[in-house]
């Protein structure tokens, strides 16, 4: 194609580079990675956060937020939302703690009970949302309330428990994976989950069904995708993950109280949004992981600089707005076809 007469060649080159960058950003979270590196460099230089000990702390806390956002990522890709994350985390942590401390049940059985319960509650939420076409916001809020209420009835209102030493070691930033690999076990778990999620979403038929359901539910139905089954299984998965994260949170805190789950609802949603996953797609878990890391590093900077909770809330709000302004306005998948 010949150049338009009179148009400077440099402008055409710059436009071409810009378009290539935009196309790359649509495929890979480049902007998110650049922002993360920039914030971390600031943290490393102004706050001594460059030591291996500090990095382990950052990665461990980011792993908790990232794992809590795993189910949320899937649901947001599908056009859904999960407001029950914090309550499921708390219910799971308490169930295991109370079953063990008050009823003498073994940890293995208690964990199984918590995980199965999380899956069942999640599946029920997905069924109700899809069958009756009710907003997931409402259904998941209700499910979370029911889960907490049930636990409160069983425990007589006791919202305090202890964590076993092995769980505390598993969630500690100072532990090593299998005792030999110099990476905290929680970070290793997160890395494995990230790889599995990437394979699931991009390399399996089930993952493509999730993306298709989110992109255009009607078109997905016409393509013979059983969207109700996709919703049920996705919500069940989110419930199971929240239950497992509840155990890790209890280990990290070395104790259980009624607030252990509270930070993770906000963190799970913001990690997904700041990472650049849009309701109904596109997006993937790698973006969420970057979002979780970014949020955690920002948090370390704010705490290290002595920011008050009010300052922190304002800065999070601005960060979300900036993220949405920069890359939250991409057209949804259904609008591109």
């Amino acid at each position, binding site marked *: 194609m010949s150049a338009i007469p009179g148009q400077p060649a440099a402008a055409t080159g710059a436009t071409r580079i810009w378009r290539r960058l935009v196309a790359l950003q649509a495929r890979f979270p480049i902007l998110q990675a650049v922002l993360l590196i920039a914030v971390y460099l600031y943290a490393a230089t102004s706050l001594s956060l460059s030591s291996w000990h500090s990095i382990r702390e950052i990665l461990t806390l980011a792993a908790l937020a990232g794992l809590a956002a795993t189910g949320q990522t899937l649901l947001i890709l599908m056009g859904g939302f999960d407001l029950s994350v914090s309550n499921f985390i708390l219910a799971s942590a308490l169930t295991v703690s109370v079953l063990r401390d008050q009823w003498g049940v073994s940890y293995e059985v208690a964990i199984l009970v918590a995980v199965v319960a999380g899956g069942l509650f999640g599946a029920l939420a997905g069924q109700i949302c899809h069958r009756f076409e009710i907003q997931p916001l409402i259904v998941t809020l209700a499910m979370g309330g029911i889960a907490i209420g049930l636990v409160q009835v069983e425990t007589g209102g006791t919202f305090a428990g202890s964590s076993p030493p092995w769980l505390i070691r598993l969630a500690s930033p100072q532990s090593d994976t299998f005792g030999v690999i110099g990476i905290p076990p929680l970070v290793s778990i997160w890395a494995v989950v990230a790889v599995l999620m990437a394979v699931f979403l991009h390399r399996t038929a089930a993952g493509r069904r999730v993306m298709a359901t989110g992109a255009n539910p009607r078109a997905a139905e016409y393509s013979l995708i059983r969207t109700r089954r996709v919703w049920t299984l996705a919500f069940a998965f989110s419930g199971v993950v929240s239950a497992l994260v509840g155990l890790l949170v209890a280990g990290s805190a070395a104790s259980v*109280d009624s607030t252990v789950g509270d930070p993770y609802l906000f963190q799970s949603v913001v990690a997904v949004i700041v990472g650049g996953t849009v309701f109904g797609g596109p997006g993937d878990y790698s973006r969420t992981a970057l979002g979780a890391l970014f949020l955690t590093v920002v948090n370390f*900077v704010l705490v290290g600089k002595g920011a008050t909770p009010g300052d922190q809330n304002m800065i999070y709000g601005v960060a979300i*707005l900036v993220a949405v302004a920069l890359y939250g306005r991409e057209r949804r998948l259904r609008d591109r076809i």
Partner: protein
Amino acid sequence: MRESGSRSRHVRAWIAAVGLLGVVAAIAVATATSSASASPAKAARATQACGQDVSYINKIKDPDGVFKKLPANIQARYGPWPYSVRATPWEAFKGKKPPWKIGLITFPVGSPWLADLIKQVGVEFDKAKAKGLTSGSLVKYIQASYATATPEQQAAAVQQMVRQGVDGILLLPLAGPPLVPAIDAAGKAGVPVVITDNVIDGSKYVVNVWSQNNSPAAAGVAGLVKKGNILFVRGIAGNPVEQAFQDAAVADVKACPGLKIVGTVWGKWTNATATAEVAKWLAAHPDVKVDGVIQNGIMMAGIIQAFLQAGRPVPPISGGGCQGGELSWWLAHKSTYKSVATCFNGFQTAWSEFRILLRILNGNGLKVRDIHVPVPVVTNSNLSVFATPGKPLSWPGEPRGPISGWAPNSFLDGYFNKPGNPKGF
């Protein structure tokens, strides 16, 4: 041309919006940092010695003249009390004939202290029922989760209990001011509301029973460390009781010229958050030695956990609102670790609060609206009285102590015109 014009308007709108946000944020931050904290009273002691707790006793607001009528030994209990002391309509209250219906309203159970308090209120209720002092069942409203709890729910619960015919209410407020209308309405209907863990200064009918259980520990740790760096771990921002703890703690630290405050984190009064926030601060300041930590309540175990995780020596941590796990850890390390704590448990609180309510219902004549209960101070020398040996740091148990160890009958007698509990309860 039209498209590029609308795009440039679009960009300008975004720039304007972001700029406006930035200006608002800057103003808010500047205002917040320059405004004085809403401290209810400034420290009155001109020369507070290092290690001595702050005292507001000469500056207590006494608009009704009731404080100065109290005997000197009762007045002396109000040293770190930062609020006013007011008259109460319950002094003239003639009482009601037992048996009484009792209500209990609490915020979400987030600590062993509250779990034990609720349990013990049930025990006291049953014991009182056996003596013909209470009837029916204990009417309870316990909020389920902080995520959904609001003060308005508690206000509605007060109103509902009054409608149900409850004679007296024990209340742990989620927040004080929103409950004033409901408490005063209950009071006018002859239903006393006794609160703890908070102070509501704006209500005529409330009965405040409170312990400044942080500043004695803060003063103790300040006196122990004397020279070095202090890290503050605060509770929930904006909570007036938290601010009262903080003002007293800062006064205690400033009384020691060798101490320097090197940082403040917000633990939100939970061990889990305290662990995470302190861990973040330690990671961001690896070269800053922390010689002491002042925390504003029930976060000592979480802070110990953060230091252990960071591989740094655990400094003296003020044990305001101490719990069983940290006391047990301290006992196990007593030979090398020193600190100061203030301890009372939920069983003791319930025992005393229940008796205060029964005395009011019996018409014993409460002298003042506001009761301050000084808390036992725990040091290495008397630690074994309070600590349970052999328990993990995460143990959600409570400090030991006799059931009447917080506010015994002899202590309560000083606040009532007629001493003693109804029917010798």
